[in-house]
């Protein structure tokens, strides 16, 4: 890094001009990291401490942080492009849409671009309602699809929705993995079922075997669309290009984002069938996004896809995932009082702790051991491990060693140094005697 960052100044400015409670929470959790150098699977705090990044902005850095090929492509794009006029037809958009059509399963062949996952899911829902002329959207409890309008309405975490209700009508949630519950609410009024093949924020919960196929069949029976949110699970994360390929299921609509931007640019894509595109033929400007699929972002995303394909990252993720899960299973077996289950696929792993407070506490202890890992938003008892797919065997072993040391610290009752207030104690002196 040529630029020196004053960490304390950065934290103080963040507290003053963004949110003091975020700084307080992150400090308390030992995660008051100001990212400085970033490279591959690692990130350096401004104070020089190195961390293996197992959060990766919820799976946004599949090709590694500042992947040299992607950085070079971004430089080249900046030299000749800008965001582009969003109303005009664009060569980078067309190229990227063609690549996505080739890489996504089945008859998915048309794309609408956006800037983030929420926007991608918003458009998927708009497309479902517009195409089917039906209203109902069925999603799953603890599912996560973003914080924008339609996507938030489909979200499975009540605390995210409650302050803003009423949200969009005709959104229904059913337990994830329960096919019977889903079939009970599906009928000819249902526009689409929206779900993740593996719930990410919900605590790294893979769909039970056969569930996705069952959902596909149930949708077909009532003429509802199947929208798969592959924003965290896609682009090689689970050891296949898309997690739905493990089950051989082809959705009508698929959303992808996060890692598509290669850790450098915001971009998302909603990929759908030619049949569904019919809705957009008479209304080609019905969904617009000023920066969605900007020319710059498309150029970067094309290189991201090329890197994943040409460097064998999908197969590599599967191999590293096997090593990771073998180690996690061994550690879990040695500490049944701390870890009750390990689950996931490829490099999308979830550690189920025995109680909720262990998520935040283990985030703290792992950070002390050089691992950046954060518990699931909707399930604090679950630690998610989603390192970059460029992670190597030594990195996996480092992670496993750090986890063992973190558990030892946890069991020893270690924690942050206790500091009382700088002012005199308020509690009356007589009350301190026990």
């Amino acid at each position, binding site marked *: 890094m040529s630029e020196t960052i004053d960490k304390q100044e950065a934290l103080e400015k963040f507290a003053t001009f963004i949110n003091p409670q975020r700084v307080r929470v992150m400090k308390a959790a030992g995660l008051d990291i100001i990212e400085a150098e970033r490279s591959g699977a690692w990130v350096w705090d401004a104070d020089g401490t190195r961390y293996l990044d197992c959060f990766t902005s919820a799976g946004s850095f599949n090709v590694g942080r500042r992947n040299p090929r992607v950085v070079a492509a971004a430089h080249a794009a900046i030299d000749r492009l800008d965001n582009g006029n969003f109303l005009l037809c664009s060569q980078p958009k067309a190229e990227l849409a063609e690549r996505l059509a080739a890489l996504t399963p089945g008859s998915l062949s048309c794309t609408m671009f956006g800037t983030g996952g929420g926007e991608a899911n918003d458009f998927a829902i708009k497309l479902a309602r517009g195409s089917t002329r039906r209203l109902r959207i069925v999603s799953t409890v603890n599912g996560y699809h973003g914080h924008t309008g339609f996507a938030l309405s489909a979200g499975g975490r009540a605390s995210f929705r409650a302050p803003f209700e009423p949200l969009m009508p005709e959104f229904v949630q059913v337990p994830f993995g329960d096919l019977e519950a889903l079939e009970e609410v599906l009928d000819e009024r249902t526009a689409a079922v929206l779900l993740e093949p593996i719930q990410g924020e919900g605590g790294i919960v893979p769909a039970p075997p056969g569930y996705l196929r069952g959902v596909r069949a149930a949708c077909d029976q009532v003429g509802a669309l199947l929208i798969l949110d592959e924003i965290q699970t896609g682009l090689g994360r689970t050891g296949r290009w898309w997690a739905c390929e493990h089950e051989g299921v082809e959705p009508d609509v698929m959303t992808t984002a996060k890692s598509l931007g290669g850790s450098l640019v915001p971009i998302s894509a909603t990929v759908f069938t030619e049949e569904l595109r019919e809705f957009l033929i008479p209304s080609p400007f019905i969904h617009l996004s000023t920066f969605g699929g900007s020319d710059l972002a498309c150029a970067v995303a094309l290189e991201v896809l090329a890197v994943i394909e040409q460097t064998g990252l999908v197969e590599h993720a599967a191999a590293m995932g096997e090593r990771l899960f073998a180690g996690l299973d061994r550690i879990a077996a040695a500490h049944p009082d701390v870890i009750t289950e390990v689950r996931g696929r490829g490099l999308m792993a979830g550690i189920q702790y025995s109680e909720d407070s262990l998520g*935040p506490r283990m985030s703290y202890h792992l950070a002390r051991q050089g691992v950046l890992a954060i518990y699931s938003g909707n399930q604090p008892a679950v630690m998610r491990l989603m390192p970059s797919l460029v992670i190597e065997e030594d990195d996996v072993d480092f992670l496993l060693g750090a986890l063992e040391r973190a558990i030892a610290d946890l069991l020893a009752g270690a924690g942050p140094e206790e500091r009382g207030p700088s002012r005199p104690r308020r509690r009356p002196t007589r009350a301190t005697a026990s």
Partner: protein
Amino acid sequence: MADWDELTEALADYTVTCNGNERLRKMQRDWSRNLHFVCADNELTFSMDVQRGEIIATPVGHVGVPDIVVTTDSEIFCDMFWGDLNPVQKYLRGEITVQGSQEDVMRLDAISAVIWPDV
């Protein structure tokens, strides 16, 4: 080990401090929760009824269905309600356990941050 009188005094001070803080009341106006507390060392229990950010009552025993259950030693509760310790540090050391949503846990910390920014 603190007795019920000491806890009552601490709770009373905490209630006055919270309810008298206009910024906090405004910030918490959409927060209504029933909190249960368990003293792990002497088995004392008490509750806190919060309605739209106002502490309505802090009765002895467990009243109603809890949204949050906080467990720790009675001395820690007293120090916590008097604002003499940072509960997050105790939480991360495993000395305070909280059953409930993570949002509520963070909100409890936010309350402390507002009324005792120096802790």
